[in-house]
């Protein structure tokens, strides 16, 4: 069973990867999500606690706004919800999306190219 936090992050990464490169296939998206989850697991413990709490808020705050938890929303609703956080006036919400975007992008360039050509685009 996938823990709730991991499911939230995987769903979020799926949205972010889709924004950056809609052609990325499910395997590549999963690779990127694993990389980002490994990064979160290794980050300083006080940040990790903050990210877990923020992730829970991100997941549950979708209920009053969209009727379901974030990870249970339809893809279009997930994209709209992420966009709402990205444009939020609350800096920590923007910062969370910026963090995941940066690391998803980094993972995307390595893992997507690896899957296609057997090696990164360039190192």
């Amino acid at each position, binding site marked *: 069973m996938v823990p709730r936090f991991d499911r939230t992050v995987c769903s979020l990464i799926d949205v972010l990867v889709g924004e950056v490169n809609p052609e990325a296939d499910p395997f590549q998206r999963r690779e990127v999500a694993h990389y980002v989850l490994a990064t979160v697991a290794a980050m300083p*413990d006080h940040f990790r606690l903050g990210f877990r709490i923020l992730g829970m808020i991100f997941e549950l705050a979708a209920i009053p706004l969209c009727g379901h938890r974030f990870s249970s929303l339809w893809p279009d609703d997930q994209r709209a919800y992420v966009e709402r956080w990205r444009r939020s006036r609350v800096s920590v919400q923007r910062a969370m999306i910026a963090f995941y975007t940066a690391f998803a992008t*980094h993972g995307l360039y390595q893992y997507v190219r690896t899957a296609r050509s057997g090696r990164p685009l360039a190192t």
Partner: protein
Amino acid sequence: MSPLRPRRTETLIIGSGPGGAVTGAVLAEAGRDVLMLEEGADLALDAAAPFSCDEMLLKYRNAGVSVALGNSKLAWVEGRCVGGGSEINRGLYHRTPEYILEEWTRRFQVKDLQPAVMRPHFEACETVARVEYAHHRAPEISRRLQSGAEVHGWHAGEAPRLYTYSPEEALRSSAPPGGKQSMSATFVPRFRQAGGQLLSSTRVRRLRREGSFWIAETEQRGADGGCHRSEVRADRIVVACGAVQTPALLRRSGMTRNIGNTLRFHPMVKVVADFGEMVNRAGDYDPVHQIREFEPQIGMGCSISTPAQLGMALAGQKDAWSLVREHWQNMGLYYVQSSGGSARVRNVRGFVDPMVRVRFEEDDLALLAVNLARLATALFAAGARRIYPCIPGYPVLESRADIASLPARLRPADGSLTSVHVFSSCPMGEDERVCAVNSFGAMFGTEGLYINDASLLCTPTGVNPQGTVMAVARRNAIAMLERRSR
């Protein structure tokens, strides 16, 4: 958590980065009984592709996520593996500028730091870890920076690297030959050959004094994933865990006087320049040119410009993926760095990792903004068609005239500051009001406890600090052998 048998050694070195590795090699080659502990894993230099996701997970502390919070944010990176930061950096090399050594002597009353005293230490380190210029091998994105500076009459040039370039192999292969002169390739093997013992994957929880010995309480991660606690008993301990972890360990151990109050960086902001023609090829050597006209306040240079780095830098741009995919070979990533800002390192009850709180003054952010504009001017002079500042909300610059649209100072909320250099958290010198240790790294008020890493540097060097760390570490290790330090 099962206990391991306690160990006994004459000298315990905590950390295997440039400070610890050089100290270990000097002491072991002098016949001393030395044990070195490293929190990270013992990995081959090529265990992961440089600057890749895998390398960040394997060799970077906290997978590359280290953020100082305060009135502005600053993200920095550190190594956490045998060899420390030398395993993950480009190895650009500078000796300490003489005016910096003079400033440290004057302001912090550091003894024996004259250029003539330091020269043999630089030379000795450069003999073990070779320092070479790329010359004609420097990539085009790097040379463009030089040509842009020359248009304005600014002083610029190539920085040497801790790297061996091999012309013979270059003729036979299109891949970059030669090798990086990291600690795991140079001083650590010397340390081991001289009889030094290295224990990796071992973290020191705290230090305590027991009679005439120092005790390091350790935690070793086993191959089984388990954590094994133990102790090392030593006559002398050299703390060389880096500018953040060294003060964190000492503060955990109850030593706080001038420890972790003055952490400094080289904060930087970046731009991506698109030259409209091929300047960036797969397999190019790392860029090496720097604009030195505005040192010591400001340095400018060219960063690693792989598609992944460009993609991260342009993450805030619309259609960044197709932009990078289609144009990365026309693009280079460039930086402006200053020496502004100061931070404190503190432990927080209940957490393992220390917190870093940073403060920038208005002038620090204004200085970076002014010099971001200067960098853009140089890049347009070098043929850039378009420049993307890597700061959220900043406009894309289509021409030199657009530079005027850049803000006069960075906003604290930009979150765009990064650093690859951290130092100065436990400055050395004889002025006990501001220094944590004496001129040779010996802690005030204790016996047999030393610091010998980037924490010692009194202020930012303005240039890549690894050469300074290595030379100061060698000087201090020899002083330990000569019993000059206490």
